[in-house]
């Protein structure tokens, strides 16, 4: 899925995350998280997995996380991608 415009999904609530995606030449993933020290690698792996599943190879993916679980990360990222793909 190609990122054609800005897209956003999620909230700033505890156990959730806010995802913003926008077009970029390369794939850039920026992670802000209250549990960054412990879980950044797992969050990144999840984001990369979802991006790969949708064939997204470029774009700036920024997340502001407050301890969201995997399924929330997946749902929020997919929603942001859909909004950014003009679907």
């Amino acid at each position, binding site marked *: 899925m190609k990122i054609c415009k800005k897209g956003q999904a999620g909230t700033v609530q505890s156990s959730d995350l806010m995802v913003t995606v926008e077009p970029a030449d390369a794939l850039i993933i920026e992670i*802000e998280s209250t549990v960054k020290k412990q879980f950044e690698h797992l969050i990144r792996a999840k984001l990369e997995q979802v991006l790969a599943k949708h064939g997204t190879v470029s774009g700036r993916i920024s997340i502001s996380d*407050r301890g969201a679980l995997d399924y929330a990360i997946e749902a929020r990222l997919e929603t942001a991608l859909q909004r950014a793909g003009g679907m």
Partner: protein
Amino acid sequence: MSASEIAAAKQLIESHGLSFEPGFDNLVGIYEQGELVAVGARAGNVLKMLAVEAEYQGGSLLGEIVTLLVSRGYDAGLDSLFVYTKPEYAGSFQALNFKLLATQAKVALLEYGNGLKKWLAAQSALIKPGCNGAVVMNCNPFTLGHRYLVETAAQQVDNLYLFVVREERSVFPFAVRMRLVKEGVRDIGNVIVLDTGHYLISSATFPTYFLKKDDPVARIQMELDVTLFASRIAPFFGIVRRFVGSEPLCQMTRAYNDTLRELLPAYGIALVEIERKEAISEVISASRVRDLLAHQQLKQLQNHVPASTLAFLGSDEAAPIRRQLEGPPA
């Protein structure tokens, strides 16, 4: 939005010792059984007047308000959002992933997202070793006075960073001010021109400056701005001197210079005040230049502005600016 909704918002905001400031792009609220229990507003890239009814604090309402405001700011195309709050509330916002930029005794400034870090990273190619200085200017428009200040300052440091105020609050648009500055200092080798992003004298950090409201609020904002510059921006560029022009005319600018003089030394930065340059018999200032333009006294302008600015002021491109300064025809 109805008058009663606004009245309820005003009451909730004021009950928290905050004052209701008209002028916002969004005002959002959450009702519980017909009662307004949380409120917040967004004015441009500033979130303000966030308040949660006492018995609902500690829950999810602040997060809900912030989510609503951040989403609306994002829809409006903003890449950075700021919040000013009492220092004791900074922690509540940090828990929502806001980053603390600067604090003063009465106020904390936080940013949603990592804007400052990203902005600095984008400027990293401009970092030069040495004893560096900084000037911050609006340049509305660039005059011989600015030129004199930059020239004098540049002689006293290895590299001079010239920050042009990005905020669009001036007759001359940012792109024009930036271009005239670049043309006007091109021949001075050690001057690096950049803009202030969201992080110097802009409405995000210093709204009262433009409002000419000379009360303690102005003082607090000035201290916050100087703290942000001295603690976050200056160290990144190796800035150890800040240059300003002496200010005989404007009380606000003079108060700002006083604030710089008081606060900078604690951060290892010296303030250097340079006497204003005079043209024939009067001090050169950008406001005088705008006056002359408004009264179509183009001839006198050459005593006040360099050739590059003069060429622009007389150009077709500047016609809308001239018309705006002249005001409606009598």
